[in-house]
């Protein structure tokens, strides 16, 4: 039983053969742009609206100075970009629902301030501010998304109700609109904790983080507003467990609910299915200091600090998201429904001048708030957990909020120390 060299070779060959057979070849990179120059990869999250993917590939193909490959990512986009940014194989250019403060402080994204030289004032300040840290701009807002309350005019009329102007009126209306077949209000399958986020706080005249970087809802008004959300849940007037979540207008147009919180993007579908039988509202004000509120946000184009072609990537971002205003207009308005991030484009858009769309634009200007950059994912989780317990379990809002305030303060201290 001696081992000959040949037996050893055979052994390694067999073991290696399995590996080789398994490896196959590189599947290669997908379709992309036509330009010469460096190869850039650009990531988008998967938009639901038909045509968006083709559109962004078309924009990329028209770029001459680099070969841009578009990747369309399904699934949890934030998690995928976060993981990819840790490596060299991530994107050069990517859209991001941020960048987050930790991504900026961790040096994962490139400073884009000089790209906006001269046109900075044309970007809607509500969405540009959260992309700005220490006076530098880290992402170019692509389009503005906002959320609002859709309601069925006919159902409210039948119940003898006016569109609710206060949170109390909303709770009341939701209760009265609830029948055996139709629920009063749909705030998402989790009862609203996820999608509402800080909106009720802003509606109570508060904010998530103050301008000087402190917790903005350490106030009895916060507990009062959030407590009212529990009444919605306890009164069984919330739709829960619909097959499609709040972001999809299905529940509303299928008549499962009389009112639904959803995004501006749902407007074309709602219009198509319900015609004139719907209206839109901001989240209603609560309390003496209250004011209506709508959350606004923007995916931004950012450049990865790991990119091998940072300058080329910046140049491409500048070309697409600063110079190509016609593409920006097409992207914002031709597929689904968004508000252009550029004030000049928003003014031009005929589609945004009438009906519910015009209302949405007005809400954005008058009542829009964006999540501040200092509101980190850890703070968000702590707050959202508490909100869910308040809404569903009827937990005491005061004590829940006290815990959140403690956690958020610690988190704010951490990020301030880091900068």
């Amino acid at each position, binding site marked *: *039983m*001696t*081992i000959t060299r040949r*037996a050893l070779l*055979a*052994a390694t060959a*067999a*073991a290696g053969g*399995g*590996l080789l*057979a*398994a*490896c*196959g*070849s*590189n*599947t*290669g*990179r*997908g379709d992309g742009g036509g330009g010469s120059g460096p190869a850039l990869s650009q990531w988008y*999250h*998967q*938009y*639901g*609206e*038909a045509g968006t*993917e083709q559109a962004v590939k078309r924009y990329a193909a028209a770029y001459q100075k680099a070969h841009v490959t578009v*990747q*369309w*990512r*399904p*699934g*949890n*986009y934030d*998690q*995928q970009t976060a*993981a*990819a940014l*840790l*490596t*060299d*194989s*991530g994107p050069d250019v990517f859209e991001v629902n941020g960048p987050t403060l930790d991504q900026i402080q961790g040096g994962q994204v490139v400073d884009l301030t000089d790209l906006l030289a001269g046109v900075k004032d044309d970007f809607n300040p509500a969405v540009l501010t959260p992309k700005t840290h220490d006076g530098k701009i880290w992402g170019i807002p692509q389009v503005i998304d906002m959320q609002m309350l859709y309601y069925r005019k006919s159902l409210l009329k039948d119940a003898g109700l006016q569109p609710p102007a206060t949170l109390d009126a909303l709770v009341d209306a939701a209760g009265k609109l609830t029948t055996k*077949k139709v629920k009063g209000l749909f705030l998402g399958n989790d009862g609203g904790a996820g999608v509402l986020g800080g909106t009720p706080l802003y509606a109570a005249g508060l904010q998530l983080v103050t301008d000087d970087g402190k917790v903005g809802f350490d106030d009895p008004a916060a507990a009062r507003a959030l407590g009212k959300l529990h009444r919605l849940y306890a009164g069984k007037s919330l739709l829960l467990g619909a*097959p*499609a*979540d709040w*972001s*999809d207008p*299905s529940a509303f147009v*299928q008549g499962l609910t009389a009112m639904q919180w959803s*995004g501006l*993007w*749902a407007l074309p579908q709602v219009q198509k299915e319900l015609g004139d039988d719907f209206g839109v509202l901001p989240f209603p004000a609560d309390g003496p200091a209250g004011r209506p509120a709508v959350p606004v946000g923007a995916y931004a184009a950012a450049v990865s600090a790991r990119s091998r072609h940072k300058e080329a990537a910046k140049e491409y971002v500048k070309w697409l998201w600063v110079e190509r205003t016609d593409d920006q207009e097409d992207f914002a308005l031709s597929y*689904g429904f968004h508000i252009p991030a550029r004030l000049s484009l928003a003014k031009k858009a005929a589609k945004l001048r009438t009906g519910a769309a015009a209302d949405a634009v007005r809400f954005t200007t008058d009542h829009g708030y964006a999540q501040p950059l200092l509101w980190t994912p850890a703070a968000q989780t702590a707050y959202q957990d508490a909100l869910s317990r308040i809404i569903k379990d009827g937990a005491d809002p005061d004590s829940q909020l006290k815990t959140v305030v403690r956690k958020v303060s610690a988190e704010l201290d951490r990020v301030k120390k880091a900068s």
Partner: protein
Amino acid sequence: MDDALVRVGRALRLALLIALAVLFLIPFYLLLRNGLSSERDITSPEWTFFPAELRWGNVRELFDDTSVPFARSLLNSALIAVATTLGTVLLASLAGYGLARIPYRHANKVFYAVLGTLMVPAAVTFVPSFVLVSTLGWISTLRGLIVPTLFSAFACFVFRQYFLGFPRELEDAAQVDGLGPWRTYWLVVVPNARPVFAAVGTIVFIGAWNAFLWPLVIGQDQSAWTVQVALSSFTTAQVVRLHELFVAAAVSILPLLLVFLCFQRWIVAGVERSGID
């Protein structure tokens, strides 16, 4: 009297079995029913056990959908599952045999090192694994999707247990015939251990076909999507296409069901004689 009682008992047991079988089949039925319905039928407030019309066109629509490369993803999944199964079974069976049969001073230490990894949840090592694979330049390649998953401690463990109980006489006879360990393994051991290969192979195949998180993050390019990733793309950020989702899910489990039905006998035989318990 007694006979009647026994017969009633038997009938009751059969009835219970049938009821349970129906319960277990309901999800499969729902998958088909929804997959062959129109969006409107699925969400109709009036429950119907069978849709008004069976829309086989949904299958066509699924493969014609240019935004999701479903056929390509099926092919990728098949390639990956087959390669992973062959590779895993080969590597793990060799290792299992070595650990069970070749006397070596540190064999037990190696075995415990293998066993220990069974207790570590994959999520623990997820991010470093991802960074490692990306350092190797294997993102969006079949290599990256396959090679890191080939070293299954579970498979190795099952093989070792099986070979521990393997009759030593066969190997002794082979040795008398002058066969070395390598040829003994291939000519004597493997042909007599087919059930355990089938059992482990099927389990690995199912796992590879159903894997989700790793292919999602490694298969960044659409050309490297697996069927599970394609499936998840039907629940997009904003709109859920219910009928397409269900028909895709139904198509995605078909190959597995076939593999399963074909190899079921082997799995049972393999389990009986392996050390899984």
